[in-house]
């Protein structure tokens, strides 16, 4: 295929795709994102393909793999009738019945109504194509309007105009810290350097978070397009995607997407015949949580141990190989194409005063509808958890954990706050990358704090003392509390340590490591006291062996 040189070339591809689409009467879309795959949707897709062939329906019925359909709890999911019929828990035995139903009534026993809050309360920008296009075909992305923003940016806008639209949009970094994207882009563009780099942070390390992996596996080209536009804006020539090796599916789809974009001249030299050239390479992470921190990530791309360094200088001025480097998260880049197409003001109309646009959340834990959602900033936690998620019957909501090991647990009385960066920080948690784990009465909050401290202790890179020693000491104390061997003095020491580690650690890992303890102490102090003074675990999770020993 020849390189795309103009908007007309893109339209031509889109037109051809549309023709093919119209030539078949039915599309059967099988979700082939990670969740459904672990419910064997690949075998299901094969079963559909075989049955269609057996019935000789290949010309009117097309079986496609598509990205995430969202509601992982009901995997495997498929959709037909242009996405208007959604089926859940489909097994290969149901294949015949579903094909029979294509021209008549839907199969009611497997159908999920699309008007339930899980779907109707969402606003999809990043996930707009997810579940609608085949993530392994660039043509599908182009037919859905893909790469139009890139051509607009490169042929109609100057780099400064691109940055100004991103600034107007109010887009903030979706990786956790919420730094204004426009400001960061502007710093990199102004930084002095003969060579500039761009890095997409896809090292999604928070346990309980699967936003980035889902975007990469469902709509990889959207991320590439956002990256290319950003590179044009800041003047970067080389890009890297730092992705977890634990996400083989995302890695495979990204590799394929990069190859396809190169083949069409959307990556490489003189894109669209302009002076602008840009290439993207993948770098695999190797299982170190700290590499989500930008200076550690840079060390890792350079082939070294992922240990952070003090900032300043910030990577925007001195990053990869001491050159100016723009680092943004997957979700941040994925927002860019739509912002360029519709304008910054359009994006800024969504969300709250300081947190604009939409945010993806990975809803997991003790809710009925676990899965991936995208909602406008400012929606209340209660709406997300009780209406979109839904608490299982017979259980009582206790807390929601946001922000992973750097975040905190929020109790029921605070659920009415709007979800934005500032409100969550005020509650002692953080927005983080978007993991949202719901807990009910079966979870012990001290045990949860211990779980996260065990995580931070093991993931501390060991470079600075407060984090290396402090997390270990805090974990020891929590272990004593959860085994019934602690005294009230331990609690005082724990609080002192929290303060020390938070204020003296080198990087974000250590600085935020005490958050799970501080937030559970703030809202569930009685549980700590019960463990220490009464030697009982109210949730019945901790075994309290030490206290039993003391009693016998």
């Amino acid at each position, binding site marked *: 295929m020849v390189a795309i040189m103009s908007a007309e070339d893109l339209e031509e591809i889109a037109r051809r795709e549309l023709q093919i689409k119209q030539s078949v009467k039915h599309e059967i879309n099988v979700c082939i994102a*990670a*969740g459904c*795959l*672990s*419910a064997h949707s690949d075998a299901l897709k094969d079963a559909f393909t075989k049955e269609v062939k057996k019935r000789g329906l290949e010309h009117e019925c097309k079986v496609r793999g598509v990205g995430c359909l969202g509601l*992982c*709890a009901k*995997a495997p999911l498929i959709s037909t009738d242009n996405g208007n019929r959604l089926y859940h828990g489909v097994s290969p035995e149901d294949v015949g019945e579903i094909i029979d139903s294509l021209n008549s009534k839907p199969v009611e026993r497997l159908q999920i109504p699309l008007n339930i809050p899980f779907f109707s309360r969402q606003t999809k920008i990043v996930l707009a194509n997810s579940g609608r296009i085949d993530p392994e075909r660039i043509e599908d992305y182009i037919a859905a309007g893909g790469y139009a923003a890139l051509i607009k940016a490169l042929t109609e806008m100057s780099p400064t105009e691109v940055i100004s639209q991103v600034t107007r949009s109010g887009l903030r970094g979706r990786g956790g810290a919420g730094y204004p994207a426009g400001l960061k882009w502007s710093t990199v563009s102004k930084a002095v350097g003969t060579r500039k780099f761009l890095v997409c942070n896809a090292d*999604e*390390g*928070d*346990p*309980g*978070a*699967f936003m980035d*992996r*889902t975007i990469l596996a469902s709509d990889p080209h959207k991320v590439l397009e956002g990256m290319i536009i950003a590179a044009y804006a800041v003047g970067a020539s080389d890009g890297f995607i730092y992705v977890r*090796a*634990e*996400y083989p599916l995302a890695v495979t789809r990204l590799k394929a997407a990069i190859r396809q974009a190169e083949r069409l001249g959307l990556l490489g030299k003189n894109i669209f015949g302009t002076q602008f050239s840009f290439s993207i390479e993948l*770098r*695999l*992470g*190797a*299982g*170190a*949580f700290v590499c989500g921190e930008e200076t550690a990530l840079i060390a*890792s*791309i*350079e*082939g*070294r*141990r*992922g240990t952070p360094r003090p900032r300043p200088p910030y990577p925007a001025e001195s990053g990869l*190989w001491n050159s100016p480097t723009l680092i943004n998260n997957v979700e941040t880049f994925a927002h860019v194409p739509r912002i360029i197409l519709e304008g910054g003001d359009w994006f800024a109309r969504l969300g709250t005063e300081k947190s604009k646009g939409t945010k993806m959340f*990975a*809803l*997991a*834990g*003790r809710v009925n509808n*676990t*899965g*991936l959602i995208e909602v406008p900033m400012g929606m209340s936690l209660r709406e997300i958890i009780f209406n979109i998620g839904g608490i299982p019957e017979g259980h009582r909501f206790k807390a929601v*954990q946001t922000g*992973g090991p750097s975040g905190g647990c929020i109790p029921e009385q605070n659920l009415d706050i709007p979800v934005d960066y500032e409100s969550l920080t005020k509650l002692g948690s953080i927005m983080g990358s978007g*993991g949202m*784990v719901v*807990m009910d009465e*079966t*979870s012990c909050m001290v045990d*949860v704090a211990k*779980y996260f401290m065990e*995580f931070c202790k093991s*993931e501390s*890179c060991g470079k600075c003392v407060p984090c290396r020693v402090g997390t270990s000491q805090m974990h020891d104390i929590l272990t004593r509390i959860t085994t019934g061997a602690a005294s009230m003095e331990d609690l005082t020491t724990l609080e002192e340590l929290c303060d020390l580690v938070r204020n003296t650690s080198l990087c974000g890992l250590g600085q935020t490591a005490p958050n799970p303890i501080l937030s559970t102490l703030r809202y569930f102090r009685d549980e700590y006291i019960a463990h220490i003074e009464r030697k009982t675990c109210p949730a019945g999770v901790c075994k309290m062996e030490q206290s039993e020993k003391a009693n016998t």
Partner: protein
Amino acid sequence: MQTEMSLTPPPPPNDDKRWKLVQARMRRLGFQASALIETLHSVQEAFGYLEKGSLQYVASALRVPLSRVYGVATFYHFFTLGPKGKHVCVVCMGTACYIRGAKNLITDIEQTAKTTQGETSADGKISLLTARCLGSCGLAPNAVFDGEVVGRLTPSQVHKRVEEWLQS
């Protein structure tokens, strides 16, 4: 990325054909020191783990001190310096899996397979590993049985799988 280096690597430790894959990866990255992690990935992909001889070879081919190669190989959890068992079970310990009972799954496997978390059973049959998060939180608890991710696990399902391995 900056320095020019000769493009002929030293000969591999033995004539195992898998070294060709490793060399190809190093060549594509210009035998630069920054290719270290990528190279270790390809060694582990090809051989299953990082042997001492492999580390020495990578050090000489990329011209970095062995201490640095060892430092990197031990810093990152993904790399393993010893062979794994015939069957590998990775239990996800992400937050969602944890609060949905991943700990119980591990206890069960430890008892059935007679091994402990992070170790391989004495007969070399089963390795029990944990993952930070597999990202399939919607279907928690999850585990990977010889590369196959399975969600919504119950202790009895896990027990059955491990028993099958033991009998095989």
